């Protein structure tokens, strides 16, 4: 069975496709299309979006669907998709086309694709400061050694050294470039901790774009330094008072703005959440983290990491580190969410542990909801993890059993914050501290010499005031 693409930027499949893929296209027939996904023009023509995932070797028909991350409808298994108002569908499709044309993998390198890649690489190097080091944390490793001197080796991927102090800028810079190519002059974004807001305001200043940041009023109070930075960089910061006045409400407001101003505006979503193509796109733009890690691991010890650990709020830094290694079955993937006051307290943000499947901000994923399907208010000491949802790809990896997810309380995170500061002279973001705290539980179980790479996703200068309130310093 042959099908042709309605999108000129996609590959055209022909009858020379392996027979297993024909079975796959049958699975994607119109009758099985979920509601609110890509509009199909005729029953025999299916719009095919090229994913950055190269065609995998498919062993079993039943497993065919699970290897596409995402499939052409932006689904990771049953998660993901595009649950958005009709007004946004065109913008999302346009964005997806632009992404594939400029930034996606192409069998034949077209010049515009190379040009974009070259420009982005230059900016990541000279502006953002990449590549970020893979740092051997000697004293931290020492801390986890057993009395007999055995223990794992802990490496930190230093995203804290990026310009603006977190991994967020990798995605912001790439999306701003994309927006410019699309001729958009106005940028909007949501922000929780403020790191994504600062990153967005930063790139807008750099590219001369108008910038509006939506931030929950409660978060604005917690992260006033970041609010100042955004304004200094020329952005307008709009306080969101609705709901719980935190990240999820800021996201809703940003989406509302985008619906109204979609022709002139690009929405730089800050995480691997939201409607397709965002989870895929944001992941791709952060994937540089994992790519560099593979190269650096090879240089440093001639092998791969054994375990990858990262904190998970929306999930962008984790996907950025994990993505490169998802198909390496011998690499363990561990995500760490916020348990706030404890999983039984009801005051946490441990979506993958305590959540149920539902739709939030345009995507199907795990989320924290009550029996009436209303979003429950999450809590975490760290604003960046204080989100009741999670990226759909994480939900998928969890259900597949490919990645493991645990959670860490506020108190444990604060201890880890202090610990890394004292042992390595690196003050980690409170978000990152959650991943660091999990080492206390993980390391005693690891065999001698295990190579652990932890994503040090941000620096903690912004959290100093929160920390001194809670710690005896």
């Amino acid at each position, binding site marked *: 069975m042959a099908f042709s693409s309605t999108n000129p930027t996609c590959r055209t499949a022909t009858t020379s496709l392996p027979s297993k893929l024909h079975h796959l296209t049958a699975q994607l027939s119109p009758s099985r299309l979920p509601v609110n996904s890509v509009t199909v023009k005729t029953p025999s023509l299916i719009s095919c979006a090229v994913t950055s995932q190269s065609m995998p070797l498919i062993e079993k028909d039943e497993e065919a669907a699970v290897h596409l991350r995402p499939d052409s409808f932006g689904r990771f298994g049953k998660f993901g998709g595009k649950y958005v108002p009709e007004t946004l569908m065109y913008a999302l499709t346009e964005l997806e086309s632009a992404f594939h044309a400029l930034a996606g993998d192409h069998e034949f390198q077209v010049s515009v694709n190379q040009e974009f890649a070259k420009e982005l690489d230059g900016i990541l190097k000279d502006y953002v400061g990449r590549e970020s080091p893979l740092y051997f944390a000697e004293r931290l490793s020492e801390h986890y050694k057993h009395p007999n001197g055995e223990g794992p080796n802990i490496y930190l991927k230093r995203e804290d050294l990026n310009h603006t102090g977190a991994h967020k800028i990798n995605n912001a810079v790439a999306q701003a470039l994309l927006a410019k190519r699309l001729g958009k002059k106005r940028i909007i974004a949501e922000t929780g901790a403020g790191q994504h807001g600062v990153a967005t305001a930063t790139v807008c200043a750099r590219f001369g774009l108008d910038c509006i940041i939506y931030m929950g009023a409660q978060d604005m109070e917690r992260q006033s330094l970041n609010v100042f930075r955004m304004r*200094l960089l020329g952005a307008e910061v709009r306080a969101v008072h609705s709901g719980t006045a935190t990240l999820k409400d800021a996201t809703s407001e940003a989406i509302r703005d985008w619906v109204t101003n979609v022709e002139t505006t690009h929405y730089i979503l800050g995480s691997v959440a939201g409607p397709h193509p965002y989870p895929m796109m944001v992941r791709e733009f952060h994937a540089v983290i994992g790519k560099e890690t593979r190269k650096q691991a090879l240089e440093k010890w001639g092998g791969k990491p054994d375990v990858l650990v990262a904190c998970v709020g929306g999930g962008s830094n984790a996907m950025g580190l994990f993505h490169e290694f998802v198909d390496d079955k011998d690499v363990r993937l561990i995500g760490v969410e916020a348990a706030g006051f404890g999983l039984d307290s009801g005051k946490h943000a441990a979506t993958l542990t305590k959540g149920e499947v539902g739709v939030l901000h345009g995507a199907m994923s795990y989320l924290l909801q009550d029996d009436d399907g209303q979003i429950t208010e999450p809590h975490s000491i760290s604003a960046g993890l204080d989100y009741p949802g999670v990226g759909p790809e994480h939900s998928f990896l969890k259900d597949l059993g490919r990645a493991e997810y645990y959670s860490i309380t506020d108190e444990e995170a604060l201890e880890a914050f202090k610990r890394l500061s004292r042992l390595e002279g690196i003050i980690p973001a409170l978000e990152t501290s959650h991943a660091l705290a999990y080492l206390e539980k993980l390391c005693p179980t690891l065999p001698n010499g295990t190579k652990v790479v932890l994503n040090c996703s941000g620096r903690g200068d912004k959290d100093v005031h929160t920390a001194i309130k809670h710690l005896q310093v």
Partner: protein
Amino acid sequence: MVGASLLSEASVISMSKGKMYVTQAELATALKDYVGRETPLYLAQRITNHYKNSKGEWPEIYLKREDLNHCGAHKMNNAIAQAMLAKRIGRKSIVAATGAGQHGVATAAACAKLALECTIFMGRMDMERQSSNVTLMNLLGAEVRSVDGSFKDATSEAIRHWVNNLDSSYHLAGAPVGPHPCPTMVREFQSVIGKETRKQATEIWGGKPDVLVACVGNGSNALGLFHEFVRDEDVQLIGVEAAGVGLESGKHSATLVTGEMRKVKSLGHTPLLLEYPGVSPELSFFKDIGQAEFYTVTDQEAIDAYRRVSRLEGIIPAMEASHALAFLERVCPILPDGARVVVSCSGRGDKDAAM
């Protein structure tokens, strides 16, 4: 820069095993993996555009991104190197003085990494104005001791403390001032800035910079950038000091320009790191032999530059670096078309937000 073999060599020479010299490889690893070097030489396109004249001519402005270092300033280059040295010669504790706190924070971080005790002396008023930096130092495990007076007095106190504990402690100077070998050592450790710049300039445009601009407090970041190019006659060296509220006012820190030792009464705007009544003997020498030129910039000009660079490039520069950036307003109109200017962006400006 650090291949697998270099790293294995470095890991064999363990810090805790007896007396061995700090190898270049160990320092290189620390600078790369811990500090985050090399720092980019970044073409600031929008600042460059800003300085285009009516004839469509302009100099090209490059920023040497010391703001991207761990702890946010060039200070770490020197702190980590000296801390490693101190550990290697068997010292258990470090003592240092800090003005704004950048050197204190860098020193505290390096000490944490190397398991050294750390005592930082800081002027009482500085501690109040820079309480965030004090908190950072405490978080990093350092003890911050308050001194009546300013940075000058904190320095005296630190040296006094060191002299009383010569066997076990090490005075980690942040400035290329004081008795030999301090100025030379600090300059050497900061000279990585200039060395990288030469290499990057060759890579990017196949030549050398025409003009180097750096702010001058005590002179560490300026010397770090200049040193590599001191023998290059065709590279112009420009240092920018703080004129505070104006040279006529007497409330400034322009040691080299006014040629006198002056105590500064800050109105709260003067960037503390440039608020030092002395300056590097080497820069004094450069001034006398005409090797480098020195100018000043007022508080207001610095603040304007702080805002300008934030808006145009999305880089919030430290108030100190803002002095160097402010000087571009005066020098760019007189530079020939295509002149390449490298400005030392010596630190990031988050710490100056309160101001």
